[in-house]
């Protein structure tokens, strides 16, 4: 359980907002968010229940005021660039849930769009926590940015703690294998890790498959420059004609029905892999249906 924040000075402390250019940019960005989202967004934001302390942060470092400003460009991408369409989002249950999605598109826009859909369209509105790679905290500026918008390093313990607090977690079991794959493998799920299944069993969390259709075409990579990647010490170096920048494709997010699994988290790998395969098969068929259903890439 999260450590309870108990404070005698619960009266919200009037924090110093950042001054100068930073403060200016922040207030402009916040206004941009509100202009894009309108009254509807304001109402949804006010329904978010983040256990903030008098300094405006939750125990994991999420700062709603900061997040409000930071989401502006993502919100614009969601509404006007990728024109995200959700299907079946009403199936996302309230309370703890693990969103399992396919990963693609070189830049992890799919994660940002799923996160946005949870804020804008899911009931109740919520901040999904993506499980961030372990090297993210070593990157300057990126590390605090992720933390302030509620993203958490994907250690099993962090995941357990968030689920125990009834939060929504977003996992891409393919990891970079999915994100950086070349275009010839589009909409083919790559190898799944099984850590998510262990945690779901342990915490009795429903798994909700999310098929992202559209992201594959945002930056098609024709060739993975493996030798150079090895030399640079990065997992892959895919070369795409767009130089990795996303094209204005249309995103479709298909939400499946929640899947609940029973059994022990300490089962043999074989048993666990059978369950993982079940999720993978379901997600693949949702992907295939989603691709067949769409009329145009753009």
């Amino acid at each position, binding site marked *: *359980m999260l450590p309870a924040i108990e404070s005698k000075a619960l009266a919200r402390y009037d924090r110093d907002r950042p001054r100068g250019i930073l403060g200016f940019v922040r207030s402009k960005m916040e206004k941009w968010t509100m202009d894009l989202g309108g009254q509807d967004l304001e109402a949804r934001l006010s329904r978010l229940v983040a256990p903030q302390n008098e*300094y405006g942060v939750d125990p994991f470092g999420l700062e709603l005021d900061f997040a409000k400003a930071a989401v502006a460009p993502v919100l614009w991408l969601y509404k006007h660039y990728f024109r995200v369409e959700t299907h079946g989002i009403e199936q996302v249950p309230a309370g703890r849930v693990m969103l399992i999605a396919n990963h693609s598109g070189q830049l992890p826009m799919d994660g940002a769009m799923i996160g946005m859909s949870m804020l804008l369209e899911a009931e109740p509105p919520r901040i999904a926590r993506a499980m961030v790679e372990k090297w993210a905290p070593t990157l300057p500026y990126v590390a605090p940015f992720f933390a302030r918008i509620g993203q958490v390093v994907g250690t099993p313990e962090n995941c357990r703690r968030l689920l125990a607090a009834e939060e929504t977690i977003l996992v891409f079991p393919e990891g970079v294998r999915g994100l950086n794959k070349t275009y010839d493998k589009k909409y083919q799920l790559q190898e799944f890790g099984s850590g998510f299944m262990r945690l779901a069993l342990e915490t009795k969390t429903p798994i909700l498959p999310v098929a992202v259709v559209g992201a594959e075409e945002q930056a098609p990579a024709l060739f993975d420059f493996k030798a150079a990647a090895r030399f640079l010490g990065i997992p892959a170096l895919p070369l795409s004609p767009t130089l990795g920048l996303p094209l204005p494709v249309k995103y479709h997010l298909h939400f499946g029905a929640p899947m609940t699994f029973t059994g022990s988290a300490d089962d043999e790998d074989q048993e666990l892999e059978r369950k993982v395969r079940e999720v993978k098969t379901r997600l693949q068929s949702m992907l295939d249906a989603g691709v067949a259903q769409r009329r145009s890439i753009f």
Partner: protein
Amino acid sequence: MAVLITGISGNLGRVIAKILHRGEKVIGLDRRAFPGAPKDLEVHHLDIRKRKVEDLFRKGEIHALLHMAIIHDPRLPQAEHHQYNVLGTKAVLEYAVKYGLKKVVVLSSTNVYGPQPDNDNFLTEDSPLLGSQRFADIRDLVEVDMLAQQSMWKHPEIETCIIRPVHIVGPSVKNAPSNYLRIPRPWMLAGFDPMVQLIHEEDVGLALQLALKPGARGVYNVVGPGELPLSAVMRELGRVPIPVPHLIARPLLNKLFQYRLAGFPGAELDHLQFLCTADGTRAVRELGFRPQYTLRETIRSVLGEQPAREAGG
């Protein structure tokens, strides 16, 4: 019946002695003088490694040991504080067994986990003690914690508590975190702003008091009133930090430390870069620990501010 406090003359030791002294008989052990000691407080000025320390135990008056004679001074040669900390701890733990003490409380800290990029956001008591992985000079502190754990498992007849508080701050303590927060223009690492946890020195006293009660046994993280970004601490204190790129900060600080222009070795910078925050729920649940100071009071205590409150806290 009395509690023996080792390291009683330190800044924290004196605060804690005064808290404990209200409730029970306290005997102190320290090489250093204890200015302003309460009159009926008996302090023995001995080196903890000396054989004469055993005489204190032999008298049979001591039923509990609070061990906090642990040197953290980064200026001392490694061999010196290593010897003092490890041999001193080993000796008093042995005497505690030999003379049938009921209770041993050892003051460790969450630094034994160490700040790392892939740390859990809330380290539990079962997390590995990797503190010396990136900061070799503190390996004696990890060893002290391990010695206490060993003794806890080997001697179930003694109630052993290992207390690991987060960064201790307060008007009296002069440790690395509180000294850092007293710098008018402190460094921060450019592009890093980790969540930090602070605890007031008197809240540490309260936790130790609870650990000394009969029945308490085990390893406990002791966490203050919450966690917040380092930048928020700076704003609360009215500090304007200097952002230093992390790639040059470490070698630069090491040089400054070498020439006595800085009080911290470069390895301490990890605390400004990565998480080392702990889960304190076990102490809340099992010891009934609740910090008495709010987050704001705790932060501002480094300025010497004491909030107005009724006696007894």
